């Protein structure tokens, strides 16, 4: 009985849902209003947000690491470049001094020649601020010729002595170091060793004020801060010059050492900006910001999806409740319909002399519909009994009401002592006078109790089973058209003699009909079940109802048994 209830379910649902939605909207626990007041993200959204942040952080940190590594590498390259430039500058200091020393040796220390040679190198904006010629074998260690400013060394005899004593043995540029005084200067010397009357050429350069000197903004190294030290030390005392105001240099730095005579320059550089460019410097931040935005969007979307899912689940729950409610309603309706069905069937079968009668109605197992199966047994007078059994196609109230009117009409015809064929023909024309789309099969049997005679007519109905002892067979009846097919249907009667104590079982197709099985198999099953053991009529009908119908039965079933008592 699938379709009809399903259709009702479908039409009932929207109504119920509407009612439910209205009730929820009015309820105090209405969730939409609650979420509008305060945003509480779902757990999945939180997880998505956290994952997004972790991924973003990982990308940003990786980018930062790569940037740092790149910056350090670039800085080392820049420091090396600075070193190369300094290395190129060293000869411009060393060469004039070496040449002047050679000249002094060759000219016996001529002050005149010395001045002429050194003049282009000394003065403001030139290589040296001060240059002087010192005879090393003289009794007193004083310069014999001075160009530019007076050398500070001349005012420090002890230091001069020690310096030149050391320098005499050294065939290269000797760096005196930073002369500590009010005006610190850097001194360097070149002497030609191994010559009897050796001369040393000494030069000095003052250090810039506060040892600070800026780079020109168009310089190749304008992107660097630097500090230049004398020697290998990076102590404050060894600082020659720097361009930063707040010394020492902090942060990322790289250093390089350039040989300078018997000493060296140490250059320390730090970047004063990003060496690889603004974009790469900002890339980690760009990644972080974009990542957080994408994460937020993803979290919001997850939250929305989660809410929709919860909503769908709530909806499914509501539908489930509606379905449960519908099931309850249909169960109720079904029991109403069954009550009606039983009301339409005879309460108690009439008793007839010499004849035992038993009947059973088994409703279909599922669905709300009641069947159209019916039966009746009426006294036809003159020791005769009229048995009627029928099956109106279709279920539900229309079938039940049709069944009721047919039953009453049949009773009327029986009362008029019509023969079975006449009853069926009259029923046929009765049905056809009303608009209908159903069929009815019916079997009409006139039983002559004392004469043991049976007269049958069938309107498309299955033949009854006649049981004698252990033998059973279906009575061969001339089958006419089912009632409701044509108004002028004609029916043939079949009359047979009945052995003593015989049993007649009339039934509707629910007892024998099975899906995927030809009817004859069902009929044989009925015959075998009915004759398998000797039973009282009451027990036989009960057994057939029990064994040949099941709780999955989709058609209702009527069984009527009649037994001659002699």
């Amino acid at each position, binding site marked *: *009985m*699938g*379709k*009809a209830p399903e259709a009702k379910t479908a039409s009932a649902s929207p109504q119920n849902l509407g009612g439910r939605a209205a009730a929820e909207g009015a309820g105090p626990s209405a969730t939409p209003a609650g979420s509008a007041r305060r945003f509480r993200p779902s757990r999945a959204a939180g997880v998505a947000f956290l994952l997004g942040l972790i991924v973003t952080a990982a990308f940003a940190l990786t980018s930062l690491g790569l940037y740092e590594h790149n910056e350090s590498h670039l800085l080392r390259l820049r420091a090396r470049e600075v070193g190369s430039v300094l290395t190129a500058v060293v000869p411009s200091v060393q060469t004039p001094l070496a040449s002047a020393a050679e000249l002094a040796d060759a000219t016996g220390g001529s002050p005149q020649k010395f001045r002429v040679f050194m003049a282009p190198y000394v003065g403001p904006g030139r290589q040296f601020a001060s240059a002087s010629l010192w005879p090393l074998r003289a009794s007193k260690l004083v310069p014999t010729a001075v160009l530019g400013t007076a050398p500070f060394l001349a005012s420090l005899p002890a230091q001069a002595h020690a310096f030149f004593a050391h320098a005499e043995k050294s065939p290269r540029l000797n760096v005196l170091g930073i002369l500590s005084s009010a005006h610190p200067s850097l001194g360097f010397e070149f002497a030609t060793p191994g010559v009897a009357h050796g001369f040393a050429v000494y030069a000095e350069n003052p250090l810039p004020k506060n040892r600070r000197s800026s780079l020109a903004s168009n310089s190749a190294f304008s992107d660097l801060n630097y500090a230049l030290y004398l020697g290998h030390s990076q102590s404050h005392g060894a600082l020659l010059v720097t361009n930063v105001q707040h010394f020492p240099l902090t942060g990322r730095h790289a250093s390089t050492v350039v040989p300078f005579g018997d000493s060296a320059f140490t250059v320390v550089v730090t970047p004063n900006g990003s060496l690889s460019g603004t974009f790469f410097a900002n890339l980690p931040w760009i990644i972080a910001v974009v990542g957080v935005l994408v994460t937020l969007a993803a979290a919001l979307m997850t939250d929305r999806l989660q809410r929709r899912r919860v909503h769908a689940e709530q909806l499914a729950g509501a539908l489930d409740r509606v379905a449960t409610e519908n099931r309850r309603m249909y169960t109720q309706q079904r029991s109403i319909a069954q009550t009606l069905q039983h009301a339409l069937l005879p309460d108690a079968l009439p008793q007839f002399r010499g004849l035992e009668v038993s009947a059973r109605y088994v409703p279909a197992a599922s669905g709300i*519909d009641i069947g159209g199966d019916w039966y009746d047994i009426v006294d036809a007078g003159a020791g005769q009994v009229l048995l009627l059994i029928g*099956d109106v*196609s*279709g*279920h539900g109230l229309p079938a039940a009401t049709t069944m009721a009117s047919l039953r009453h009409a049949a009773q009327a015809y029986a009362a008029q002592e019509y023969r079975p064929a006449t009853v069926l023909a009259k029923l046929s024309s009765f049905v056809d006078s009303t608009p209908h*789309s*159903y*069929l009815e*099969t019916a079997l009409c049997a006139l039983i002559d109790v004392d004469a043991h005679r049976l007269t049958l007519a*069938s*309107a*498309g*109905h*299955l033949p009854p089973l006649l049981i004698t002892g252990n033998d059973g067979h279906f009575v061969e009846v001339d*089958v*006419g*058209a*089912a009632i*409701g*097919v*044509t108004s002028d249907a004609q029916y043939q009667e079949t009359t047979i003699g009945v052995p003593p104590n015989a049993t007649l079982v009339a039934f509707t*197709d629910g007892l024998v*009909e*099975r*899906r*995927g*099985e*030809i*009817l*004859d198999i069902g009929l044989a*099953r009925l015959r075998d079940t009915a004759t398998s053991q000797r039973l009282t009529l009451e027990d036989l009908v009960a057994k057939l109802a029990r*064994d040949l119908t*099941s709780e*999955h*039965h*989709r*058609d209702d079933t009527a069984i009527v048994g009649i037994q001659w008592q002699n």
Partner: protein
Amino acid sequence: MAELDSDRPGELVIDTALDPTGAPILILSGELDIASAGALEATVASITAKNPEQLIFDLSRLRFMDSAGIAVLVDAARKVNGVHLRDPSPIVRRVVELMGLSSVLPIES
């Protein structure tokens, strides 16, 4: 009861086609019972509304038919003169026979 297991709801599929003679054919597959009779009834009504001279029910793929299903066919036979059944299975054929409807619902030769 194992033999009753097949007593479960089936489904009816209704296809329509045209015979070479121009007669409409309703091809029924599955099970025609009280549950599916309504659907067939609606389809039949839409066809009989056009007053065809013939109507053929192709039952070659119909596994089961109960009295409610037959009622729809008989109803069609009342409205259209030339209703024929095509290739019914023995099961369906026997139902038609036992209900005394062989003349109302003739099987196509």
